[in-house]
C-alpha cells in the first residue's frame, strides 16, 4: 500500500464517518425514520477488507449496519442517502430503508435485518459463483453476536464441505445490542469457534487498516485460489449506541475512551503525518471538503428527490409480466 493509496483510504474512511454522522443529524431532524444503525469506529474493517478484494465485482452481503459497505462496493452515496430519506431515487427505491440497502449492479446484495440471515445467503452466492466458473468470491460481513445463530454453523459446515469461495468477516465489536460478548458467548474469540470446520480462521486488529488489509489479502488469496472458505475476525468497536434507540448505558466511559484512542481514522492520519505525506492543515481542508460535499450534493439530492407514489405500492411484490404465470411465452 503506497502513500497515495493510504491517502485515498483516509479520504474514504473520513467520508464514511461524516456520512454516518450526517445520518444521525437527519434522524434527529426526523428526515430518516425506522431503525438506524451507524458505523463510526469500525471503518477500517469494511475499507481494509474491500480494498483487498475487487470491490464492485466480488459479491458482498451484510446485515443492517450496511451503508458504508454499500458505498465501498460502489454505491452512489446520494442514492444511499435518498434511500434513508425514503425517496424514489434511493438505492432500493425508498422501499427498503437503512437496513435494506441494495446495489446489485455493484454486486452488493444487501442489507438484512434478521441476525444471522446472510450467512447461508453468502454461501449460496459462493455456490453460484463456483457453478458459473467465475473467479469472484463472496464476502459476508456480520457481527460477533450473529455467530450464535444456527445459520452460522450450518453455513460454515456447508461451505467447508463444498469448498465454496466465501470469506466470512466477523466484525467483533464486543456487543450485541446491550449484551457484552462474554455474557452471550461461551468462547469469546470467534475465530476459535471455526476450527471445528477445518476452515482457516484468523483474528486481527480491526482498527489499523493496514493490518486489516494484509490479513484480508491473505484470506482472499486463499479463497480466490479455490481452497474453500476463510474466516477473518476483526477486533473493533462501535462508538454510538447499537441503533438510534439505544442509550449505550451498558458500557463504561473508560472502555469507550480507551477505544477512541485507537480510532481507525486517527491511526492512519497520524501515520501519514509522521511519514510526511500529510499535514494537519491538509487534513482539516479535506475534512471540510467532505462535509461540504455531503451537504451540498448528497443531502441536497436526498432532500430534492421525489417520494414514491402510492399507485406503485404493489410494484416489486412479484415479477412483472412473467410469461410462465400463464403457462409460457406463446
Amino acid at each position: 500500500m503506497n502513500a497515495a493509496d493510504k491517502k485515498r483510504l483516509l479520504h474514504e474512511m473520513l467520508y464514511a464517518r461524516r456520512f454516518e454522522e450526517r445520518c444521525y443529524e437527519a434522524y434527529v431532524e426526523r428526515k430518516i425514520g425506522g431503525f438506524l444503525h451507524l458505523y463510526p469506529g469500525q471503518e477500517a474493517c469494511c475499507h481494509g477488507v474491500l480494498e483487498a478484494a475487487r470491490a464492485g465485482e466480488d459479491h458482498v452481503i451484510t446485515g443492517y449496519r450496511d451503508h458504508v459497505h454499500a458505498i465501498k462496493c460502489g454505491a452512489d452515496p446520494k442514492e444511499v442517502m435518498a434511500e434513508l430519506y425514503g425517496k424514489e431515487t434511493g438505492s432500493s427505491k425508498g422501499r427498503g430503508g437503512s437496513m435494506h440497502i441494495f446495489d446489485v449492479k455493484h454486486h452488493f446484495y444487501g442489507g438484512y435485518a434478521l441476525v444471522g440471515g446472510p450467512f447461508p445467503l453468502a454461501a449460496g452466492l459462493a455456490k453460484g459463483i463456483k457453478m458459473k466458473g467465475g473467479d469472484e468470491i463472496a464476502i459476508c460481513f456480520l457481527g460477533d453476536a450473529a455467530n450464535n445463530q444456527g445459520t452460522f454453523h450450518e453455513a460454515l459446515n456447508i461451505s467447508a464441505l463444498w469448498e465454496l469461495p466465501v470469506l466470512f468477516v466477523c466484525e467483533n465489536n464486543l456487543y450485541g445490542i446491550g449484551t457484552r460478548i462474554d455474557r452471550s458467548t461461551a468462547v469469546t474469540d470467534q475465530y476459535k469457534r471455526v476450527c471445528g470446520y477445518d476452515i482457516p480462521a484468523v483474528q486481527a486488529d480491526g482498527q489499523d487498516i493496514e493490518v486489516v488489509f494484509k490479513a484480508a489479502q491473505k484470506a482472499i488469496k486463499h479463497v480466490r485460489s479455490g481452497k474453500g472458505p476463510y474466516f477473518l475476525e476483526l477486533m473493533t468497536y462501535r462508538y454510538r449506541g447499537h441503533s438510534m434507540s439505544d442509550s449505550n448505558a451498558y458500557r463504561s466511559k473508560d472502555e469507550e475512551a480507551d477505544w477512541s484512542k485507537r480510532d481507525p481514522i486517527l491511526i492512519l492520519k497520524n501515520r501519514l503525518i509522521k511519514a510526511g505525506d500529510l499535514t494537519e492543515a491538509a487534513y482539516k481542508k479535506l475534512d471540510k471538503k467532505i462535509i461540504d460535499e455531503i451537504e451540498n450534493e448528497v443531502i441536497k439530492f436526498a432532500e430534492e428527490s421525489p417520494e414514491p407514489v402510492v399507485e406503485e405500492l404493489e410494484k416489486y411484490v412479484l415479477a412483472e409480466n412473467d410469461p410462465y404465470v400463464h403457462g409460457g411465452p406463446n
Partner: protein
Amino acid sequence: MANIMYWEAIQRAHDEEMTNDPLVICMGEDIGVAGGTYKATKGLFDKFGPERVIDTPISENGYTGVGIGASFIGIRPIIEIMSVNFAWLAMDQIFNSAAKVRYMSGGQLEAPVVIRSPGGTAHQLGAQHSARMENVFMGIAGLRVVTPSTPKQAYGLLKAAVRCNDPVFIYEHELMYNMKGDVPDAEFFHPLEGSEVVRSGKDLTLFGYNISVHWSLQAADILSKNHGIEAEVVDLFSLSPLDRAGIAASVSKTHRAVIVEESEAPVGVGSEVMAIINEECFFDLDAAPVRVSSANVPQPYNHTLEKATIPGPDDVVNAVVKMMGKA
C-alpha cells in the same frame, strides 16, 4: 385499581408469578440486565437473579427449544422473543415441538411454556421488522394464541397463560407498550378462551383484536356521531381457539359484520371469522361480511407507502358506511 402502562401490567404479572412459583423463569434477548426492549421484565433480574431471569444469546430456535425442554419436566418458562419477525426462527420448536408433544406422546408429555412477542407495524421499520404473524400462529393445532388489547388483559392473560398447561403464544404489539389502562389491584386470571363485547350496538358488529379493537372503538364513535350508526365492538382476545359462540351471538343480534385486522387479508383472522359466520349464522346476515385489512405487500419503508398499507379508523368508517348503503 391502578392506571398503568401495558408494559407495567406485563411486568407485574411476571413478578407475581415468579414470586408465587420458584419454577417460573423468564428468558430472552436483553431481558435481564437491560430489563427488556419494552421494559416488560424491568427489575426482575435484580429481584430473582440470573438463574431465573435469563439473558439469552441470539439463538431464537435454540433458546425457545431450551424453554420447551425445561417445561417437559415442570419448569414454567416465559420466553420473550423480541419481535414476531424473529419468532420465524423459532417456528420449528414452537410448531414441531411445543404444539405437538402432548398429542404425539398420547398425552404423556406437555409443554406449559408461554411465548410472548410483539408483532404489528411500528414506524418505518421496513419489510423484515413489521410482520404481523397472528395468522401463522392461529393455524397451529395444539398452540393457544391470545392477544391483549389493554393493560388489564395483558396482565390477566399472562397470569393465566403461566398457570395453563398448554403452550400459549401471547401476541403483543410494538405500539401498545406505553398505552395506559386500569388494572385491578387484586390478583386475577383472564380467561384464555372467549371474546368480549366492549361496546354494545344494534346495527352491525366490528370484530377487532389487539390494536384493531382501538381502531374499531374510534370508528364506532365516529359512526355514532356522524352517521347515526350504532356499532357493536367485539374484542377477539383469543385468536386460537376463536370464540365461535361469541361471534355468532353478536352477528345474530346485529346481522352485519366487519372484521378489522392489522394483518394482510389472505388466510387471516378476517377470513376465519367470515368462515365461522358462514358456518354458524349465515341466515342471520343482512349483508355480506367485509374485512378491513392491510395491503398484501412486504412492508415498505417509505412513510407514505407505509401509511397506505395499514388500515385505521377511517377505513373502518368507510367500509361500514358503504355496507349500510349510506355512502
